[in-house]
């Protein structure tokens, strides 16, 4: 059976060059980089090299990079660490209603501990109103946290402009760039961010490793206390193989960024066009201008059918896609991102995300465009909402008809 992987925002396969770089760390180079003997010395350099590779991809200095275990850890560290370190200054956080749960749920937790959080709304395209952001800043504001690229819709937020606002009011600025890194150019200095989080498994490195950029001079309470690793900013024996893999993946991401972005954009646009042409009654979720979205992401609601059932049907054809964020698939709530964009709840349940990777081919997209219309039609035939016999009185049909 064909296997067509269109769920790269959930996770990516490990790049062969990355695996190759990692393998020695499981064999001869197994030491603890904190050790002074041969086994430690053999890997300490590898960790520092990876730090340079990560720093170089995002325009940071190596000393500003701290290795963590995943994007979620980075986000938790950025938020909780700031709240603890800046307790004297204030307790107000500004974020958006479309952040990843790693930020949102952390904010909800922090609210319980006495923080105040402003969740900025988005418009129907999923974009922010920067005047509203600026107006939300108070004397007590200690942190603005806005993601660089949205995992569900692919929307890209104006990080540079937000950075300017943050600097104007001297408020610390964190960005969750887990989805942006490797897909669009990311430069921490140009963007004016104080903290930035990235995650290995979204860019061809293995799962279980990520990094946080912490601008020099940024006071941050560690999330993990213990040993002296990472200059006391993150305890725990270094995940050497993962770190080496992340470094290599960042090097490759930088090297291939333009080529990969152009390739993914072309295929994504082809898919988008093809769906528009061949499947009636759909709604695109996210910014209508594809250039305002990550080049690999397309989120569409197929009216009358539920997302998971479409996924499972596509899966029968070997096509892997996702319904909202993979991380929220344990939940039965429709996507909070689409909710924030005022997408009708039935359509939110109908949403399907296609997220491409550098390995996808034109043939794969053709295949998807062949399978998709008939699969959608088959499920629509099964749906009580489709060609509803008493459409006039049916409230749900009423809602959907508005798309």
């Amino acid at each position, binding site marked *: 059976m064909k296997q067509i992987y269109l769920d790269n925002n959930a996770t990516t396969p490990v790049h062969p060059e990355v695996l190759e770089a990692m393998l020695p760390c499981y064999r001869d180079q197994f030491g603890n980089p904190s050790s002074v003997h041969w086994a430690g010395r053999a890997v300490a350099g590898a960790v520092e090299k990876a730090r340079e590779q990560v720093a170089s991809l995002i325009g940071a200095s190596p000393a500003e990079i701290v290795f963590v275990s995943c994007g979620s850890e980075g986000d938790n560290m950025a938020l909780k660490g700031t709240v603890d370190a800046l307790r004297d200054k204030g307790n107000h956080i500004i974020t958006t209603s479309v952040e990843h749960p790693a930020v949102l749920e952390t904010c909800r937790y922090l609210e319980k501990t006495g923080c105040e959080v402003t969740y900025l709304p988005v418009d129907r395209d999923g974009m922010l109103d920067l005047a509203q952001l600026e107006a939300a800043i108070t004397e007590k504001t200690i942190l603005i946290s806005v993601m660089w690229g949205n995992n569900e819709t692919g929307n890209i937020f104006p990080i540079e402009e937000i950075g300017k606002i943050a600097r104007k009011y001297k408020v610390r600025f964190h960005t969750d760039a887990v989805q942006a890194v490797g897909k669009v150019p990311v430069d921490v200095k140009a963007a004016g961010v104080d903290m930035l989080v990235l995650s290995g498994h979204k860019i061809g490195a293995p799962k279980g490793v990520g990094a946080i950029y912490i601008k020099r001079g940024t006071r941050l309470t560690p999330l993990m206390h213990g040993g002296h690793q990472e200059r006391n900013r993150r305890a725990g024996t270094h995940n050497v193989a993962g770190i080496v893999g992340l470094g290599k993946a960042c090097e490759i991401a930088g090297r291939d960024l333009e080529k990969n972005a152009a390739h993914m954009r072309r295929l994504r646009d082809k898919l988008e066009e093809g769906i528009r042409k061949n499947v009636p009654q759909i709604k695109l979720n996210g910014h209508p201008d594809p250039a305002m979205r990550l080049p690999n992401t397309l989120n569409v609601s197929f009216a009358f059918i*539920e997302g998971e059932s479409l996924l499972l049907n596509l899966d029968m054809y070997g096509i892997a896609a996702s319904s909202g964020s993979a991380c929220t698939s344990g939940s*039965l709530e429709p996507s909070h991102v689409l909710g924030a964009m005022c997408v009708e709840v039935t359509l939110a349940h109908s949403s399907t995300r296609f997220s491409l990777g550098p390995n996808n081919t034109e043939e794969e997209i053709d295949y998807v465009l062949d399978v998709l219309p008939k699969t959608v039609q088959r499920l629509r035939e099964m749906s009580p909402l489709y060609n509803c016999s008493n459409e006039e009185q049916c409230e749900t049909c009423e809602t959907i008809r508005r798309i």
Partner: protein
Amino acid sequence: MYTDKVMDHFQNPRNVGEIPDANGVGEVGNASCGDIMKIFLKVEDNVIKDVKFKTFGCGAAIATSSMVTEMAIGKTIDEALELSNQAVAEALDGLPAQKMHCSNLAADALHEAIKDYKARQQAG
């Protein structure tokens, strides 16, 4: 996460469709929870001669709908009223925990359809 039986019923759902001259129709669920099930019945002499369904919902919702139609056909309406959501889930060799509450409503839809049939009988 789904059992083979669930996948089978999901991939090859039995008795999809509507019955134009149904004498009992039931609908449960609502759009906001992501599951709507509609059951159409043809009852003769208190026996369910034909059942069809239409469902908007996840894999579990479609599989339970399909399963309940198979289980109901040939049963008297009193027997069919004994059918529980739990029994449907068991007939599918179980459902994932998080699907038990939201998507396991097919027996309820059947019961609604039977109620509708009874109401029509009384009215008629």
